[in-house]
């Protein structure tokens, strides 16, 4: 009678076919970590961007009226448009940072950012400013999908 430490033939045949657990490798663990936290990081960072611009548009609208298309930048209408834009940015920023209806907030951000990109292109054509906003728009588009979100205010 002999005792073999080798696994049975069936197990030996099946072992190479079974995929290794993703978390077994550093790359796999990094991937799992990114999958768990990247949507949250993207959401919070986009919220910070919107908050920064929203706050400054609210407190110093005169610095932003030049971006309002079709309206004289020194006019009251341009200032009102900037203030309304800043207010909406601030509300969306809080929603994103705190994780309140994130997909809805992201969708609204997509509309806002698309409007910004289109107006920039219409006024000044493609530029570094425009392309930078295109990237932010892409982030907002990504956040409209279903992702596991952490650090959210669910109540």
């Amino acid at each position, binding site marked *: 009678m002999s005792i073999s430490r080798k696994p049975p033939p069936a197990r030996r045949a099946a072992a190479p076919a079974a995929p290794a657990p993703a978390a077994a490798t550093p790359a796999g663990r990094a991937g799992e970590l990114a999958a768990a936290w990247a949507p949250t990081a993207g959401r919070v960072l986009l919220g910070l961007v919107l908050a920064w611009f929203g706050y400054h548009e609210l407190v110093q609208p005169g610095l932003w009226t030049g971006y309002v298309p079709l309206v*004289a*930048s020194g006019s009251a209408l341009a200032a009102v448009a900037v203030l309304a834009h800043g*207010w909406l940015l601030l509300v969306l920023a809080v929603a994103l940072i*705190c994780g309140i209806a994130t997909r809805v907030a992201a969708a609204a951000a997509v509309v806002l950012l698309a409007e910004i990109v289109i107006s920039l292109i219409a006024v*000044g054509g493609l*530029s570094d400013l*425009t392309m930078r906003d295109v990237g932010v728009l892409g982030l907002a588009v990504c956040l409209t999908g279903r992702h596991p979100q952490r650090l959210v205010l669910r109540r």
Partner: protein
Amino acid sequence: MRPPTTPAGPAGLTLLAVTAIAGIILAVHGWSGRHSGLAPGALGTTASPASATAGPASPARTAAPAGHASTDRRAGSRSAASPAPAGSSPAAGPGPLLSAQPYASYAFRVWPGTPNAAARAALTGLTVKVRRQGSGITVTASVSGQPAPAPRFYSGGARVYIVEASLGDDSGNSDYSLGDDGLIVTDAQGRIVQ
């Protein structure tokens, strides 16, 4: 069908409502001070053009870099830049030190001498021409591609600065917002000439 990943609960809605109210308060604050906080001679304000003194025909020095001479400033329908604060008088004396002003760190000297890289960036979309005239200088500041206003005389003026609070609104040869741009003239001691 799965529910949304992050529903808006009462606490979330309350927070959004508080944010909305805070935003309205900030907007009221911004509306009331929308014309303040800018440097004197702000190019983007609606300040009425100051009285200008036409200078004699003398050799002119332009502070605008050559690359910007024919640029298209896309700051909208603003007709022309006002090179001086509203209500100022060429006969007024020197004011406070530029170095003591909160916007001093955003002021870039464009005359005399050759503007450095930061000043050239601040001049994006602007054309500034300076001429010596007697004990002072005449300055013409305009949006590139638009008609220049009449030159303005600054008695005792010795240096010309462009104020650009943020270069983030400059792209290529365009400045999307004149609201943070201004022009300052100082005397030889660095005091702002009104």
